[in-house]
């Protein structure tokens, strides 16, 4: 194959991280010819930061991507060496499935799935630039001079845009340690007038596990009840390990406080905004001076590596300070650092320049997904990759991408937040962001989304079969739960309810926290045969049913306002009564509907009424003309 030969695909995905892999894979699953371009084949599917996948809010995203037959859930299970369901003591709506994944196994699982995927070609090489006119992107130019043409290009380049590393007084160019930053591509995006801002993030030092005194530290074992990230995975696939927990102490804080002047965060070298919720240890100690200790999870990075990731002490202090404060903690007195921590400052695109399919609004054929949009985390990246891949493939196939809204998925909550609010810090998913989280549970992601995925055509046979069986089982159980029983019937089973003669369906009885499906099995023996996960999901549906019903009317309002289109070309400056600040925010975010406009910060009902009136007038003029 000649190096200058031109190739043609429907879609090119640039970058083989979590966003890129999901984008390429879903486009290919939809039957669109897709190229996944990565600097090296080996770097595809790398877990570049911490070795964990999932967590609160993030676990929801993993399950949702999985419900579209995505990769991340199954790859996480294939590589998981430690499972932990966070928030187990609280309702399932806020329970967060989280695993520690072996890096090598994870990457191998991703490669296995990509290699077995039809319509997907992996292209190794460096992307020099985009093939771009003023209004359209139609391919890429590789560093070797060859071009690849496509109808859509998805940029999933992570932090590679003008990344700069900071460690104490040291400065390095590049995204991650040992990788080159794509400066030329970044320059081209800047030149195209895309709004660019800067963010920072950080990593902790990596510790040699052989130098940790594990015996001195409390252990956190892997959950033993066999739950998995993806319902298609079959239990534990590899040996399980354990994490340990250490803590910072007064001595640690003293060392850090005494060295703050050597941190680029405090010397002013980094002025980009870091995350509120994932601050560096020096930030935590500076901002929350009243706390005398912070927990540090020691997470093994894999089965055949000694690297340990100390979750909770991300830092950009000089290496000598890092070793000193690490050794001040219990169990780490003799710890050796293999790779010191560092902070990264990087460019990202203001996601308000994107539409809800993550396409650049003013540029046909260009999509952006993942950290490039100002988010943090594998899960956020994977979900964006999925959405961008679906958007681009739908464009190629000439169909509408499915409409997801804040009432159906965390993915839509994230996209909506990004394209309307933009980011002021790396965006991380939280359950608190989802107003309708009682219905958006990690345990019902398949029920919520797989039907949409099936209609879209991005679900392979194995999941389609599994889901079909599950839906039938679900329908059967719901039918049984329609049977009406009285309080007396329940008392006879030994269930503690008021004997007031109330008669209601079993589904309604399940609203009481002390009633479970298992406790009703003697009334309806068919309930005995059901799958445990499905039963748990239905119990939770019943538990929160009154709240879900109340939310319905809210969602109806929301969806009605989603029907009122504002269009891409609304001139907010001419609408009387809007403040300059409102005009600026609206013009930047360009909400596509009235509902979207209502979610932009600082937009009052009076402003909304004015926008509505303006839109109505404009529409009636357009009809008249």
């Amino acid at each position: 194959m000649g190096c200058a030969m031109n190739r043609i695909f429907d879609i090119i995905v640039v970058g083989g991280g979590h966003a890129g892999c999901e984008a390429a894979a879903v486009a290919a699953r939809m039957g669109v010819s897709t190229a996944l371009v990565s600097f090296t084949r080996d770097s595809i599917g790398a877990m570049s930061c911490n070795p964990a996948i999932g967590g609160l809010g993030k676990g929801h995203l993993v399950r949702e991507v999985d419900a579209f037959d995505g990769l991340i859930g199954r790859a996480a299970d294939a590589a998981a060496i430690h499972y932990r369901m966070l928030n187990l003591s609280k309702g399932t709506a806020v329970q967060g499935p989280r695993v520690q994944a072996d890096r090598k196994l994870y990457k191998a699982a991703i490669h296995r799935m990509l290699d077995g995927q039809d319509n997907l070609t992996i292209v190794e090489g460096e992307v020099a630039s985009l093939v771009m006119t003023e209004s359209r992107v139609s391919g890429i130019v590789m560093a070797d001079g060859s071009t690849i043409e496509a109808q859509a290009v998805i940029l999933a380049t992570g932090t590679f845009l003008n990344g700069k590393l900071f460690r104490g007084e040291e400065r390095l160019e590049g995204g991650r340690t040992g990788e080159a930053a794509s400066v030329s591509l970044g320059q081209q995006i800047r030149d195209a007038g895309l709004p660019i801002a800067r963010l920072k993030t950080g990593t902790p030092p990596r510790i040699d596990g052989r130098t940790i005194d594990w015996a001195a530290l409390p252990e956190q074992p892997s959950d033993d009840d066999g739950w998995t990230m993806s319902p298609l995975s079959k239990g534990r696939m590899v040996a399980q390990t354990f994490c340990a927990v250490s803590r910072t102490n007064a001595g640690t804080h003293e060392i850090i406080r005494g060295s703050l002047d050597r941190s680029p965060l405090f010397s002013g070298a980094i002025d980009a905004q870091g995350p509120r919720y994932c601050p560096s240890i020096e930030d935590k100690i500076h901002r929350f001076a009243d706390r005398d200790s912070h927990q540090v999870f020691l997470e093994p990075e894999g089965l055949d590596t000694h690297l340990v990731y100390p979750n909770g002490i991300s830092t950009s202090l000089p290496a000598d300070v890092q070793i000193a404060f690490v050794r001040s903690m219990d169990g780490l007195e003799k710890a050796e650092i293999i790779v010191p921590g560092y902070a990264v400052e990087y460019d990202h695109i203001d996601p308000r320049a994107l539409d809800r399919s993550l396409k650049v609004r003013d540029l046909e054929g260009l999509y952006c997904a993942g950290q490039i949009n100002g988010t943090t985390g594998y899960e956020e990246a994977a979900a964006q990759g999925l959405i961008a891949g679906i958007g681009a493939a739908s464009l190629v196939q000439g169909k509408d991408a499915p409409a997801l809204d804040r009432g159906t998925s965390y993915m839509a909550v994230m996209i909506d937040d990004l394209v309307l609010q933009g980011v002021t810090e790396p965006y991380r998913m939280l359950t608190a962001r989802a107003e309708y989280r009682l219905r958006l549970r990690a345990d019902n992601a398949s029920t919520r989304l797989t039907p949409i995925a099936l209609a879209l055509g991005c679900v392979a046979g194995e999941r389609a079969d599994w889901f079909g069986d599950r839906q039938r089982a679900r329908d059967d159980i719901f039918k049984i739960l329609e049977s009406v029983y009285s309080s007396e019937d329940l008392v006879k089973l030994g269930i503690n309810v008021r004997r007031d003669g109330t008669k209601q369906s079993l589904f309604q009885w399940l609203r009481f926290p002390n009633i479970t499906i298992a406790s009703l099995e003697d009334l309806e023996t068919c309930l005995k045969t059901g799958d445990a996960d499905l039963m748990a999901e239905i119990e939770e549906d019943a538990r929160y049913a009154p709240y879900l019903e109340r939310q319905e009317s809210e969602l109806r309002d929301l969806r009605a306002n989603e029907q009122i289109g504002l269009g891409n070309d609304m001139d907010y400056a001419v609408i009387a009564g809007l403040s300059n600040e409102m005009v600026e925010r609206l013009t930047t975010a360009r909400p596509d509907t009235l509902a979207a406009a209502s979610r932009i910060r600082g937009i009052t009902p009076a402003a909304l009424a004015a926008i509505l009136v303006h839109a109505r007038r404009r529409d009636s003029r357009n009809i008249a003309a």
Partner: protein
Amino acid sequence: MLSADDTIFALSSGQPPAAIGILRISGPRAGQALEALTGNLPKPRVAGLHNITNMVNGELLDSALCLWFPGPNSATGEDLAEIHCHGGRAVIRAIEAALEQIDGLRRAEPGEFTRRAFTHGKMDLAEAEGLSDLLFAETELQRKAAVRNAGGGLSRKIDDWQQQILALSARVEAELDFSDEDDVAPEQVAEIHNSVRPLVDEMGNLLERPRAEKLRDGIRVVLGGPPNSGKSTLLNALVEREAAIVSDIAGTTRDVIEVPIALGGIPFLFIDTAGVRDSGAETIEQIGIDRARQQFSAADIILWLGEEGQGPAQGNLIEISSRCDHPDHQPKASAAFTLSPVSGRGMDALVDHLIIRAKDILPDADQVSVNARQAGLLSTARDALSAVIDETDYLIVAEHLRMARKALDEITGKASTEDMLDGLFGKFCIGK
């Protein structure tokens, strides 16, 4: 069909006759209309005396103070003209008729000026509602309370609650999203319950206060008693005494006469159940009694002119011994007032007493009060917070707090999830 593009006009002062009448014109043709009446457009925001002439026949209608406010810097946010003319009915009618002849102008619907001000971002919802009460305010007391709400007294109160609930939400969300990772100290749900209690009480207190509409609609005084017990005579006597400030008498239903009267600057609505029992037919009689009962139960004060002890058993009933100068007069043993509407005997004492009673019933003009819409939302918020008190499932606590925030947001129309996240991250050390 009404259009927001129309130019609207209306008499925005009280019903004529009065010392002056203020006509307001708002919309794209307001300037043109003013020019048509005065011959030229006055300088913006400068009051000047102008001759108002009928542009069809050149007849001089009045000499009036005219004001011109080009939009958006006007009360409605649109071009706005004001004509302060003499307050006689004929003058006002003549100017209104002249305005009606101008192409593109029409009479405003009730509340339309306020709605336009709201639409053009001149006020938030709570302010808009305060203003609508202000526009209705006919008495000094009403005006004070309305100014208080329009100036944001209610908004401030609700802002304060919102801040407190946001802080609670932040604590609960921290518990939900972060406690498992030891970023925040575990929250005791009982502490959340304790923090909610005072809010529930405060909201309850505001809800128990008389509604803002009471100021607008007046104290409901129902005159009760059989036909010919002197109800109409008493009503007429009250009306005549205050004839200068009585509005038009309007029968709101076939059976009930409602008369708004201001006594001592306080708005009253006198309701005469006259006619209730005037019909002989048994079934109609029954309907009449039912209606009277409804009136009694909605009354703030009942003046009972019937036989002693035969009135509805309500604490707000005042026994009246009326027509004391009538030859058939049977004095009541324990009448609070003995009256002769004809001679005026006892009337001053009754009026004084009504004013004193009314002051207890009306919201204090210096206090924040809520109207019915606001009360509905406020009780939704209060109920949601009450539900928090026995709840131990944090998810449900969070959902109730969210519903409370949403209801309060609807009163003022502000805030978002982001505000709550700000509260969350400002207070806690979170993260790995």
